[in-house]
């Protein structure tokens, strides 16, 4: 019986599944990541994962600050304005009343967030997450 190097087979399979997805059978209801970006200081801690099907998930991994209305531009443009937007507001220091955390005017390339509290409308840091069909 020939000697089989299972270590090399395993390495080869790992490389294939990490790097070469052209032969993935999409009819089997499997989707595959074709491009991604990890959050770093250089990219403003934004991230995304684009799938072969056109689906994209993207978000920010650091609290966004700013007063009043903050414009968010998506790293990956969406097909249109119909996509899922989730926003969470940070309240680490507690206290406050009249919280407001909303988005408005979504477009294919972004949206505006109002994240503030209190009668003085003090701004609050927030994070965002988006998923849906990408433009390209």
């Amino acid at each position, binding site marked *: 019986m020939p000697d089989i190097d299972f270590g090399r087979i395993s390495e080869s399979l790992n490389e294939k599944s990490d790097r070469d997805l052209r032969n993935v059978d999409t009819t089997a209801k499997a989707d595959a990541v074709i491009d991604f*970006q990890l959050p770093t200081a*250089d*990219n*403003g801690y*934004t991230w*995304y994962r684009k799938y072969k099907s056109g689906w994209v998930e993207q978000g920010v991994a650091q609290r*966004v600050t700013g007063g*009043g*209305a903050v*414009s*968010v*531009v*998506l*790293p*990956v*443009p969406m097909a249109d304005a119909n996509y899922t937007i989730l926003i969470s507001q940070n309240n680490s220091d507690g206290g406050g*009343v*009249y919280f407001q955390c909303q988005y408005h005017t979504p*477009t*294919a*390339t*972004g949206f505006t967030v109002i994240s503030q509290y*209190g*009668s*003085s*409308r003090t701004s609050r840091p927030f994070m965002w997450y988006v998923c849906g069909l990408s*433009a*390209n």
Partner: protein
Amino acid sequence: MEYYIGQIFEGKYPPMAAVWCNQNNAYIEKIDGNRYEIKAVPPAPAPTKEEQEQARANAYASEIDPLHARKARKTILGEWTEEDEAEYVAKVKELSAEIAERYPYPTDPIFEEESAQEQSKEGE
């Protein structure tokens, strides 16, 4: 790559263009089928008189009403002194002025006219 207001991208824009916009008060608009343009975020519209009135009312409730409550409680308990009264009046005046300054009414002439009319009625 350098980014700037008015820059146009064909087909798609690089993710770093979005980062630049997020850090420079700009946004990207799809200007036609397959082109994107970096634009400056326009300044926020000034708050309306109604919004400022509501903001003032909220501030009075959260910042001045507790002073009234303290006075009422101490008066009932017979602990309210002349010094307390002087301090209370001074504090209410100070906070009222500060709140009015924090939430100014629009300077649109129509509002100035309304304000003048209100003052005129108060003086009658």
